[in-house]
């Protein structure tokens, strides 16, 4: 149960994590992971420390996580491995997929430094610079959903990603207006083409601007800009209720007050029952089970919590994590690990001393998930769609890379269990929690350990322990979370 909780509410547990949480009642564990506001935020300060996973900059440059995208990727992986607030990173990943925005389009327009800032800037890194998109998603991770929708409508990365800066009174442009309904809130089937045109007009005038010291890409940054002159001041009528009294028309209002249009629409989208159901279903699949039909009673209870608590995400998550379904062993290992989840859990369970997360970047791309680079605005295709021959080879090969790197640590840890191959096997199967192997598979592992006569010498441990580690971590049984 503890391992399950730490896998789902975070990215798994290292042996030290397990020791830390051991003996605590599960309700306490869940409560502390969910209410992480008081937990330390010292993770970035640990970067570079010898007891943590390493980072490697390109060509020996200083680590520049706010202005170089591969460094930003490493910082995020580091946080997933070492943050004291694992749920914050887990939710940031969930929302990254929900508001899927790709760095490459933005970098093509404004260059890598400013684009990296737009994706995940830490505001303390440069006076006046706003939080990057993922940092905003962390801030709203368990907060107000309409607040997050509004923040995304005004997020410079989102503005450019969905062409909002081109959407003007005389030349409305539908891209953002469509996706905020199709993908970010209601879902398809709950709006019409006419609603798309109206929504496009609501967001006319939403734009971005370059600020800071423009002399350098390193010292300048983009911020949101509302341009009243570009806003369509006419009334906009929808097919669904915009106001609590059932009114479907956003009234004509002065251009200077035009941002209120967006607020009206976003509140309407946030309180729509279809949004409640859709968010509850997506969260259920992400945290409980995606291999069988969602449990309608829990999904409905989550949707109800959302509607009854001012569209607050933590209320939904509390209902979810306190449910019997979350704790039901039948739901353990009933999610396909996303590549990020797979890699981070493998690192936490295998060990990281002497390993650098830069070694995970190319494998993650090959597994189909590069951070800050979802394939399109619909996010990644999850569940069984993660699995292909190519992605499975990438997963198996990453387990080989990691096990090879951790060869001596793994062999040392295994020394107390070296007496027989089967004792060693039992030890490693327990170290890497999985959905359970049949005897066919464990026999194959046991025979692997005895490929040549078992001696249990240090030299043999240094060969076969990493070998068996890769077999387990690369197995089908380990791909589930």
């Amino acid at each position, binding site marked *: 149960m503890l391992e399950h909780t730490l896998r789902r509410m975070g990215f798994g547990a290292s042996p030290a994590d397990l020791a830390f949480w051991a003996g605590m009642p599960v309700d306490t564990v869940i409560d502390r992971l969910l209410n992480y506001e008081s937990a330390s935020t010292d993770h970035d300060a640990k970067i570079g420390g010898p007891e943590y996973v390493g980072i490697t900059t390109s060509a020996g440059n200083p680590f520049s996580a706010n202005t170089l995208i591969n460094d930003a990727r490493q910082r995020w992986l580091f946080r997933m491995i070492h943050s004291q607030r694992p749920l914050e990173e887990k939710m940031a990943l969930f929302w990254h997929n929900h508001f899927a925005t790709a760095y490459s389009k933005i970098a093509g327009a404004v260059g890598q430094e400013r684009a990296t800032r737009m994706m995940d800037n830490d505001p303390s890194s440069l006076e006046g610079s706003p939080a990057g998109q993922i940092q905003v998603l962390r801030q709203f991770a368990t907060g107000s959903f309409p607040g997050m929708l509004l923040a995304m409508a005004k997020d410079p990365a989102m503005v450019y990603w969905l062409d909002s800066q081109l959407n003007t009174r*005389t*030349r409305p442009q539908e*891209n953002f207006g469509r996706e905020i309904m199709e993908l970010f809130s209601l879902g*398809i089937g709950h709006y019409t083409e006419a609603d798309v045109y109206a929504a496009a007009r609501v967001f006319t005038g939403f734009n971005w601007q370059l600020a800071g010291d423009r002399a350098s890409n390193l010292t300048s940054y983009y911020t949101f800009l509302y341009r009243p002159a570009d806003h369509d001041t006419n009334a906009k009528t929808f097919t669904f209720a915009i106001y609590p009294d059932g009114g479907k028309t956003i009234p004509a209002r002065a251009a200077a007050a035009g941002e209120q249009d967006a607020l009206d629409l976003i509140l309407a989208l946030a309180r729509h029952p279809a949004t409640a159901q859709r968010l509850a279903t997506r969260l259920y699949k992400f945290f409980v089970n*995606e291999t069988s039909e969602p449990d309608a009673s829990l999904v409905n209870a989550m949707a109800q919590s959302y509607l009854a608590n001012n569209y607050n995400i933590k209320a939904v998550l509390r209902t979810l994590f306190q449910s019997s379904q979350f704790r039901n062993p039948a739901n353990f290992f009933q999610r396909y690990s996303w590549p990020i989840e797979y890699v981070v859990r493998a690192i936490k369970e295998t060990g990281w001393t002497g390993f650098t997360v830069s070694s995970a970047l190319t494998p993650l791309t090959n597994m189909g998930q590069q951070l800050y680079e979802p394939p399109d605005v619909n996010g990644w295709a999850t569940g*069984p769609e993660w699995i292909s*021959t190519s992605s499975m080879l990438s997963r198996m090969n990453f387990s080989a890379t990691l096990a090879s790197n951790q060869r001596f640590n793994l062999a040392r840890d295994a020394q107390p269990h070296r007496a027989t191959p089967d004792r060693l096997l039992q030890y490693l199967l327990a170290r890497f929690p999985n*959905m359970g192997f049949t005897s066919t598979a464990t026999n194959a592992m046991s025979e*692997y350990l005895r490929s040549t006569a078992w001696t249990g010498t240090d030299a043999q441990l240094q060969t076969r322990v990493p070998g068996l580690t890769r077999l387990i971590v690369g197995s089908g049984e380990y791909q589930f979370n």
Partner: protein
Amino acid sequence: MAFSRRQFVKGGVTAFTFGFAAPQAICDIAFAQGSAARNLVVVYLSGGNDSLSTIIPYRDANYTTRRPTIAIPAANVLQIGSDSSRVELGLHPRLTGLKSIFDAGRLAVIQRTGYANQSRSHFTGFDIWGTASTTNTSGPGWLGRYLDTMPMPVDPLVAWNTQRETPRPLMARTVGVPAITNPSTYAFSSPNSGAEAGYERTAQTRISSHIPVDRPHLAFVNSTTQAALGTLDRVATVATYRPANVYPNNGFGQALTAVAGAMNKQIGTKVYWVQTGGFDTHATQGVNQGAYFNLMATLGDGLKAFYDDLSAQGLLSSTLVLVYSEFGRRINENGSAGTDHGAGANMMVLGGGVRGGIYGTAPSLSLDPANPTLENNAADVKYETDFRSVYAKILDSWLGSNSVTVLGGDYREGAPNFL
């Protein structure tokens, strides 16, 4: 999107057990079937191609007035003659390679394909084109259903997806399609070397040989691993392929090189999936340069290199290439010198067995709301040819399959006669 595949996994478990049970024996079958078989290469243009910029009715006065900044000047288009309604057409100026294939009589362009009440959503649209159904868009795809009709046991390399993720059209009930993005990195690495590495590969193969009927998702993953490990050595031969001509150095060119390599090495694959993206041109499409120009360069140069390569190898007559996208785009350009999501669009078919030419009629771009060739108040192109009739033609006349069975209905009527 994620949930739909789950049902397919559930239904497919027993067959997975059968299909991937004996990779070695299957290899022999594949080699025996050999290269004589015809193959199909599907090229998907991701994002919704603005097909009015691909095949241009350049004399239509409304084409210029409705697209004041992005219309391709008549003087620049590559003229290909007129369609049956006497509309003069031209290819995009950057499609010089496709023009030469057209002139050789091996490129068919099919105008105004689509379906009634066309979806403007990328994702729904892709699934409708993928499943060949407007109502049940979450099941297996049309190519997957074709693969499902193959006699068991099916060679794991019967189809080859050059993308990492299995696209809807390739999803099958009983056949797992390998994703091979790059044959040269399609390998099994090890923390150890020599015999020790061999022990690991043997063990991993045995561990994944367990395909439990009561755990369908594990069965699916293990089947996929089996397919990967069982095909590594054959795919490795493809990595040694060196084309005699030069392909563009981009993802599309690399994928097509791998496809030509698989054909050259007689892998026996029948269906290939290739895609190239960036077609969601909401802004700054450009005219004589810019975003759309670059898209046409990627598409045209890649297909031409592939065509020339196959031609030189004598493989053209066994190859058919189908090019499509999930929707066409709005006729009027938007305020960003781009185009928003639209409806009807063009498909293209090329290959040694293709009867080249222009099929179907171009839309009249007149703004009259009653204009029968347009829809949505004359904003979008209305389809004339059901896209499924093109699939039907390919299934029946090229792959020797039964389109009624595969497509779940008779779509043969009105099929353009390009084969």
